């Protein structure tokens, strides 16, 4: 009797183990599929200008808001500005309310895609909650463009 009991126990355990493995497989598959479509790459202005990015492809753009470049489009709600890495420039349009710490000369990160005219249509603009903080993407953009100065504070 104890033998058969042990066997049943073993079988019950195997069921659980198999269910677990199946679940693991499903979640790994889901994760891989999702990774394929949803990883968002990061580019700086220089890379966009020199290597080009397909219009419509979502990516993150980092850099500094160029001085004297911020304006409003005629509709009164679309913000236009230029993101620079002090080497190349990208024009950005963002409809909506800019974050509280958005300033000229500040580092920002924007999520969006280029349109056919090469303008970056942002769906989201991030400036961090601290004025001394430089978004790592903005730093990275300037490093890639070779315009990063080490006197600037890194991180927060």
């Amino acid at each position, binding site marked *: 009797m104890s033998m058969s*009991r042990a066997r*049943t*126990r073993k079988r*019950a*355990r195997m*069921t*659980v183990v198999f*269910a*677990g493995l199946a*679940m*693991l497989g*499903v*979640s790994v598959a*889901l*994760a891989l*599929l*999702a*990774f394929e*479509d*949803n*990883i*968002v*790459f*990061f580019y700086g202005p220089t890379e966009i200008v020199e290597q080009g990015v397909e219009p419509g492809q979502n990516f*993150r753009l980092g850099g500094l808001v160029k001085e004297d470049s911020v304006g409003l489009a005629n*509709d*009164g*709600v679309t913000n236009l500005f230029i993101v620079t890495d002090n080497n190349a420039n990208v024009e950005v349009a963002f*409809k*909506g*309310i*800019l974050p*509280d*710490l958005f300033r000229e000369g500040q580092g920002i990160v924007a*999520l969006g895609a280029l349109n056919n005219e090469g303008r970056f249509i942002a769906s989201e603009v991030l400036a961090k*909650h*601290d*004025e001394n*903080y430089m978004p*790592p*993407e903005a*730093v*990275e953009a300037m490093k890639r463009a070779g315009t990063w100065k080490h006197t600037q504070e*890194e*991180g*927060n």
Partner: protein
Amino acid sequence: MVAELGHFALILALFVATLQSVIPLWGAQTGRDWARDLAAPTAVAQFLCVAFSFGALTYVYLISDFSVQNVAENSHSLKPLLYKISGVWGNHEGSLLLWVSILALFGFLVSVFGRDLPPGLKSRTLSVQAMISVGFLLFMLFTSNPFLRLFPVPLEGNDLNPLLQDPGLAIHPPFLYLGYVGCSISFSFAVAALIEGKVDAAWARWVRPWTLLAWTFLTAGIALGSWWAYYELGWGGFWYWDPVENASFMPWLSATALLHSAIVVEKRDTLKSWTILLAIVTFSLSLIGTFLVRSGVLNSVHAFANDPERGVFILLLLVVAIGGSFALYAWRAPDMKGGGMFRPISREGALVLNNLLLSAAAATVFLGTLYPLFLEVAGGDKVSVGPPYFNATFVPLMIPLLIALGIGPFLSWKRGDLFGVIQRMRFVFLITVVVSILAGVAVWGRDAYALVGLAVATWLALATIAEMMKRAGWPKAGLTGTWRRLWKLPRAAWGMSIAHLGVALIVAGATGASMLTLEVVNSTRQGDVIEIADYEITFEGVREVQGPNYAAVQGVYTARKDDKTIWQLFPEKRRYFATGRETTEAAIESNLWSDLYVVISGDGTNGAYVTRVYHKPLVPWLWLGCALLIVGGFMSLSDRRLRVGAPKRSQAKGNMMSPSPTQAAE
């Protein structure tokens, strides 16, 4: 002087914690009762030291003593009292002190409320708890001392980040930490059980209330943070799958699984080693969350490499705690005997499914959160993993979980009758279909996935209510009989049902927030009208307002529906004196079905301000659902306390090392 006393108390706490982590464990292992019984007094002493230290830091904040660097950097004499207090944990050093205080608090609670715990288990648990304390106290004293003095003494402080000056966020960290750190107790219990080599129903009965307490606080903490993001950040979102959010969500998923598997250990004496593993994983995820948030590694891997002291220290703590406990698990867990058997279709089976899906969800969140870090460390591309990834992995795992969640409580232990249950649930199914069709008409042409979300939420809510009715004797007992028996059901049953209803509401609210939201952004002058959903919103102009430490431009809006004025809304744009920082304060009005959310910005050139208006259906349910989760947690907890008294009787003074067999019987 007070600051120095606080620092001294912290050093004292380190010594006490060191004693607590060594002597009681040694005593329990070698049978020296005097040493074993030192666990409780040392836990109390450690708590008193840490609490004194925390009080000292609070005091220097209250009197605005800017000679303490931490106060000067994070406070301001004009700051309202609440934010002077919350400033204590609104920074790295202070939040660590809060962390250590809560760690000690839980040790204290176990030593006080755990009088009837088997002494061996109790002292080992407190020893393990003290080991964690030692690690974090060392970390604080060597890298993050909050009591450092500053010279010359500045006349005024730098103020707390204005975004953090908010009642919701003031109490968010303590709750979150009570949850995070509360998981340490189940971890300590698990490690103690591994050292002792014994896990039984009594063990689970002790672990469950502590896990439940931690889980309830963690839920409250996450909900408060999400609520804060919703009304303070001005984007109208409640969850961004931001790494910092994920850092608290992973332990929550794992703690939720633990909560459920501990039930199986308690009732059926099986799934023991899995439960132990979950307890270890849950706290490990809490530690990893702390590491992610506190080491600066999320801002930039480079920032971490440039200032490695703190990061490396936490990483080391992480490796020792996680590695050590897993090694212990690998060594001792195989000795644990499995208990009661069950069929795949049974209550146990349903809870196993719950555990598998929650663990898989935690794993995908973990992968998405850490993948960019791994890639960057490996020198690869700089990428980010955003909400689309999480929506694509997390949601498909949640849908079967939510459907099964409706069925699970109907199944009986050991061997369930799925066909019978489905038959019994046919009315639930029918009503779900009807409600879904109605919802489908209401949201027609908006988003097909929204319908799935609403249908699942309806199913879960109805199934939960039906299960409660069945438990109270419906339909045999009749309407009045069922009603009367409903109130006599154990509080744990109520707690479960309330929490599951909360989940249904959260699903509905999240569906509304993410898929049914309407948004209008317009440039508005005085008298302009924005139309959204059934509302007409008139911009009446702006006025200047003065706060205690800020000045604001306040917009005045009138919302009308069917030509009747329903609400006046006053969104603000604030500028804080000390830092010159600006924040956006949204104005939100709710009728419990939907929220109207107005934000103002712009500088008023030519009298034009940018107005952003959201109509957010079902979002109030999201917060209501969170509240139900918390109420359910406490409700269940109040039941547990009564039942925890049960082992009291069998814990006679003599046979300390092994609890009597009657205790293991349910």
